[in-house]
């Protein structure tokens, strides 16, 4: 990756569902595996192949496309409903891509009645009893918070720099392995916990544009103990200086933190 080029996750092989799964199972050459992008069709009953004399495979593809469109409609509406519930509970729109409609569901009656449509009211009525479980977990949360308030401040990585306690034992520590013949100070900043295996690090760069980047910097997961390791290897000829780079979540493409290396003479 050259200087100035943005770090971005690789494009997926496809941007639509594999339509004809059964064709994928046939030996190659017998039928083209259809893995092209979706052609959404209106949800509804499948077509009758015999009615119009259409090619059965073609009609089957259309039928499957309609079925999948229905499935995506169902799950997307479910996710939107969850997001709306989260917004109602929190008193405002949930933040864009970080919000997760599946992560929260408000107890019945969370939405103001004056603004709720008829459908929402019916849905809330159906889900009335669902308020029991959130209340129960809220209770557990309150009890736990009262008993161990300090534990909630724990975050990934802090364990290595804090006095041992229960949350320290539980937090996922990151080990740092540095291979260098010269003094090197390595700092990893992760503002929030993240899936270690999904993190990747862009090459570390110095402010001076003519200095080569530090490319051998990686987060790896130990094969035996599952421990996350920040591995830094510095060649003997690398110019001294301060090098910094982003820690990026490969799943979302979001920056998660920074790594810096201060390399001495």
């Amino acid at each position, binding site marked *: 990756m050259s200087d100035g080029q943005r770090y971005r*996750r*690789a494009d*997926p*092989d496809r941007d*639509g569902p594999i339509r*004809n*799964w*059964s064709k994928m*199972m046939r030996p190659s050459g017998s039928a083209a595996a259809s*893995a092209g992008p979706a052609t959404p069709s209106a949800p509804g009953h*499948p077509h009758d192949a015999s009615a119009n004399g259409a090619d059965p495979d073609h009609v089957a593809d259309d*039928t*499957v496309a309609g*079925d*999948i469109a*229905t*499935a995506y*409609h169902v*799950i997307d509406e479910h996710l939107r409903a969850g997001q709306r519930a989260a917004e109602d509970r929190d008193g405002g729109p949930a933040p864009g891509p970080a919000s997760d409609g599946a992560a929260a569901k408000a107890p019945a009656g969370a939405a103001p009645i004056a603004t709720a449509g008829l459908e929402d009211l019916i849905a809330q009525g159906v*889900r009335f*009893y*669902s308020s029991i*479980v*959130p209340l129960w*977990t809220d209770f*557990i949360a309150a009890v*736990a918070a009262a008993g*161990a308030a300090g*534990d909630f401040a724990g*975050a*990934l990585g802090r364990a290595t*720099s804090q006095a041992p306690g229960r*949350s320290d034992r*539980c*937090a996922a520590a*990151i080990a740092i392995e540095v*291979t*260098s013949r010269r*003094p*090197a*100070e390595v*700092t990893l*900043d*992760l*503002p*929030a*916990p*993240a*899936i*270690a*295996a*999904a993190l990747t690090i862009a090459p570390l760069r110095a402010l001076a544009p003519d200095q080569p980047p530090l490319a051998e910097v*990686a987060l*790896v997961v130990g094969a035996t103990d*599952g421990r996350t390791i*920040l*591995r830094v*290897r510095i060649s003997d000829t690398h110019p001294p200086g301060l090098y910094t780079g982003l820690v990026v979540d490969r*799943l979302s493409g979001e920056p998660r933190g920074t790594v810096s290396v201060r390399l*001495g003479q």
Partner: protein
Amino acid sequence: MASSVRAVAPGSPVAAVPAPATAPAPQITAPQVTSPLVPAMLREYGAMTRAALDRYLAAGEPRRYLYDLAADYPARGGKMMRPSLCIAAARALGASAADAVGTAAAIEMLHNALLVHDDIEDGSEARRGRPTLHAIHGVALALNAGDALALMSLRPLVDNRDRLGDRTALRILEEAGRMAVECAEGQALELGWRDANVTALGPANYLEMVLKKTCWLATIFPLRAGALIASRAPIAHAAFVRFGFLLGATFQIQDDLLNLVADERYGKERDGDLWEGKRTLMLIRLLGQAPPADRERLTAILRAPREARGPGDVAWMRAQIDRHGCIGYARRYAHGLAGAALHEFGRAFGPLPDSRDKRFIRELVTWVVERT
């Protein structure tokens, strides 16, 4: 609040370090037919989960009336897909199996608790090749054992505090609470449709019911819990939910198909869903395809309680399902969902490094439509 770790190399090599593992580019290839990996990992993670279950289901008193009953369904075996998916998701994302096995045990316990209740609600006669719990011990004792199993499933989730910390343990508990509500809603839809003899249903209604009744416990929660265990943070990727839904819906349609076409290995009552008037995709398809006279007869049969339904009624429904190609329709539907599930797998897991667990999760998609 910035969290940081810092290390200083003192000017000499710290250690001879092997080259970092590199993540291969995500690849979508045709699924391997009859994957040997899936059964092997189901056995491996299933055994791990059973060992944890044994600890949590240790017999106490009154053993004869409660603990033996609570341990009955888990002891009969089962596919162990749900707990295995949880462990595999956690491992694929960088956690250890030991971190996830408690949650996996909780999932299996709750699953078995719901099976006890479902069998009572459905009036089912066989489960995993033996009579249902209520058929052996009566409804009252079976119901109580199911309640106990559900409540006991909370124990491993609370015990997660010791290994995962309070915050992660609570998030998993919150997710479990959400999942339990979704399950109850899905079951309510299915039972309510039968109770009110609702026949104006389409595939979207079916999928919504399956999303709640099946997918949250079978796939979505195990995946999200696994990701939570690995990340110790809220999961903000809808792709996990979409993949879980599409995998779970494929699984349920195949399960419903097996009820009509499976051999004796199936372990449940053959045509039991027709006896119970369950709104499966095949029945919904039949309701939409049957000519008016047949639809009227079908509606009348479904209106009757199970005990008033005769073998002739069930045989007639089964013949109509064949006549209108409902089995083939459901199979195509399941295959289509499986394809979409593979697509969503690529989105959810594609960027992760290759691993046995990642391959297992991907090959599960194929396995659920191939299983017999």
